[in-house]
């Protein structure tokens, strides 16, 4: 019986601790204010938390952030409907935020915020706007591959000399967005043929971009299709990593720019605070943060990329009517599944 009491006490203790601690984390002297703004973020805390902290400090707006996978959070917002506590959704990729656009759950982003970026980096109807981006790239092992021999186009990777050599992450959102863009630029038949070609070529599939970069660094597979940013991260963790990014030729769909996007929920009762955050993420301070500290490309007109990265102009990334990336995800997923690319190993 004594142990039962002890166990009950043990259960209550952490709850008490938790209350004490959450009070502690508020600025000294102020009673814990309820959050003014709730953000659901598919971008992880390391990549966006510091800039949201600065937004809080500069505007005095208390922000709560729920981090998670973009697709899971989009499902959550759909399930919550009108009663969603979220004011803002930040999506890792156009696909997940497009899911919410299609369901009419987003209100319009302010025109002056939209105007900060080129029109191909935002939703045509103004439902979301991109604020930072990654470029699709071919990461390769510098010990195994001479970059001069690498092809000009992602379409060349289905050639016999690349059999079993190019890793892909077919369940990853960025890969799916890339395939959607390919369908829209080149047509469904070409995209279908490419997927089939990659599958027939025995391209090994991995869980995500990070796994591919690690496998390439180990020499397990000589190259892989990823976003540029993951190799920069790998080098930050291990400067000896024998990996580098290769970008396909100008205009090739293989160097597509994938945006991280923000949208304001229609159901939010703080439209102004939400719009403020969107504007803040496109202002100079935040754009410099993405450029200098997270190795992403800033998307505001005139913002400068990290000097360690090749200039966007030199890569000649394929920008796109990103609006269409959101829609059409369904067909893309069916196409990937049907190609057999998800079950190669």
């Amino acid at each position: 019986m004594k142990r039962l009491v002890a166990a009950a006490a043990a259960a209550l203790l952490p709850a008490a601790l938790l209350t004490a601690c959450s009070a502690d984390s508020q600025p000294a002297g102020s009673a814990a204010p309820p959050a003014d703004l709730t953000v659901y973020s598919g971008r992880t805390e390391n990549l966006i938390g510091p800039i949201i902290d600065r937004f809080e400090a500069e505007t005095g707006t208390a922000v709560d952030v729920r981090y998670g996978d973009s697709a899971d959070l989009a499902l959550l917002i759909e399930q919550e409907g009108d009663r969603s506590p979220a004011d803002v959704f930040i999506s890792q990729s156009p696909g997940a935020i497009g899911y919410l656009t299609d369901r009419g759950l987003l209100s319009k982003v302010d025109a002056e915020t939209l105007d900060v970026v080129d029109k191909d980096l935002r939703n045509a109807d103004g439902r979301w706007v991109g604020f930072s981006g990654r470029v699709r790239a071919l990461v390769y092992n510098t010990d195994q591959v001479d970059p001069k021999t690498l092809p000009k186009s992602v379409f060349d990777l289905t050639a016999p000399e690349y059999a079993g050599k190019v890793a892909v992450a077919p369940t990853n959102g960025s890969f799916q967005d890339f395939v959607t863009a390919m369908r829209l630029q080149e047509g469904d038949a070409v995209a279908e043929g490419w997927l089939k070609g990659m599958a027939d070529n025995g391209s090994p599939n991995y869980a995500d971009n990070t796994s591919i970069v690690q496998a390439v660094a180990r020499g397990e597979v000589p190259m892989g299709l990823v976003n540029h940013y993951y190799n920069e991260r790998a080098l930050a963790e291990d400067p000896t990593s024998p990996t580098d990014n290769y970008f396909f030729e100008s205009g090739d769909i293989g160097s597509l720019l994938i945006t991280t996007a923000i949208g304001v929920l229609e159901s939010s009762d703080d439209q102004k605070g939400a719009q403020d955050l969107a504007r803040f993420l496109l202002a100079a301070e935040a754009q410099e943060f993405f450029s200098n500290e997270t190795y992403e490309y800033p998307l505001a007109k005139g913002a400068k990329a990290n000097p360690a990265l090749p200039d966007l102009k030199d890569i000649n990334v394929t920008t796109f009517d990103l609006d269409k990336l959101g829609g059409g995800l369904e067909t893309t997923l069916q196409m990937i599944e049907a190609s057999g690319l998800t079950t190669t190993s």
Partner: protein
Amino acid sequence: MLSVGVVVVAVLFAAPFVFLVAGALEAGGRVGDILVSEAIRRPLANTLLLGASVAVATMVLGTVLAVLVGRSDLPGRAMWRVVLALPLVIPTFVGATALIAATGRGGLIPALPRVEGFAGSLLVLVVFTYPYVFLPVLAKVSTTPASAEEAARLLGHGAWRTTLRVLVPQLWPAITAGGLLVFLYCLSEFGAVALLRYDTLTRSIYASRLLDRELSLTLGLILAVIALAVSLLMRRGGESYTAAVGRGGSRITLRLGPVTPVAFLVCALPVAIGVVAPVAVFLTWVLRGSGTVGVGYSGWGDDLGFLVQPVVGSTAASVSAAVVALVVTLPVAFAQVRRPARWVDGAAGIVTSVFAIPGLVVALALVSWAVGAPAALGWLYQSFPLLILGYVLHFGAQSLRGGAAALTGVSPRFDEAAATLGAGPRRRFLAVDLPMVLPGLLAAGGLVLLSTIKELPATLLLAPTGFRTLATTIWGAATDGFYAEVGIASLVLIALSAVLTWLLVLRGQTRR
């Protein structure tokens, strides 16, 4: 009174089923097509093959380890008790990442074959889930009097033969209960098998969650139905053995002699793969550091303040979930053992099978329920109590099966004797049954605790906004390749789990 409790618990645990059935109903006439589609057959076969293989392997390994630690004269038994439980605390997706980094070309030990595919998934899941068998079986060993084994020895049976023929049958309910948990865990597992590139049904559930919600939920329902069928088949975890009477649960009956080194290796191997290898990888990541500019943890010597909130969050969530799960499922366990009836088995089956439903689906079910609840209950949404309810639904199977296995070992004759002395049911439970089953209950609570501390998908969706646990921290860092941070947070997670397991579970068992 007991029946009412059982019904209430069953209704609670049926919530995810209702959600899945509703989703499948939306799919309507397609359900038949989905069931026979080629796309489902292979992942489903893979899931079942992996689950069954891992279950059998862990039943053997977990039992051998429990008998060695609980009955033999193996040196360092007190230490093995703790370290053999530890692999359970490492989230499988992190464990898989670490083992992938440890083996194969360019790995820490390049000579070892690369971990991947079916063999890799089997290895990874066995080393990270055998404690589901080891912990309850060890608890059972500690409460099983050695008198039957001693009698067998007096009759001239050898020590090994006695262990196999006399002790193991008494442990059988705990062994099968643990094996069932492992099987159900494998059904719901997603992170590790995806990293190891083995195609299972959960991958299809995740891959279709935005594309085709009905398909995703129908696949989830398939998992749940399989789980329900299997848990009903194994409803009471085998026959109840109450042959032996008396004390002496911690008596040594197995003198190892010349096979001591072999026994030592058997204990050391799972610890080497499930604890030492990942810890070594985490340490290299931390020591290698990270050239992060302004984001993330940069390696040895950097400020650890960012881990305080996750440590508090993990502790609060896991301890609360363990206690609540024990309290909630105890009536069902008690009814199942003492008042067996078909409908009670049905209730227990529902509780058990929720464990096989992926955490994401359990979470979405609770969200749909809480969002649709009357406004008076609006505060409940994304509150700490709802998060705990999510854990209890997802992991109640562990406290139920562990609790039932513990109760099975107690002869109802004690209870009857107390009744003839005039003790009422409550007093009989508290004074007679509870002290005898406490080690088993603590082990069951320990399983819930360790499962909760590494839980991810439900935590991300159900927790109060801004709530952090070590698992969510590790996930965030791992997603974008912040390996130094994954390393340090994982080391802290292992340390915290070891401390909690020792304080709340093992101390109570060894003190007897």
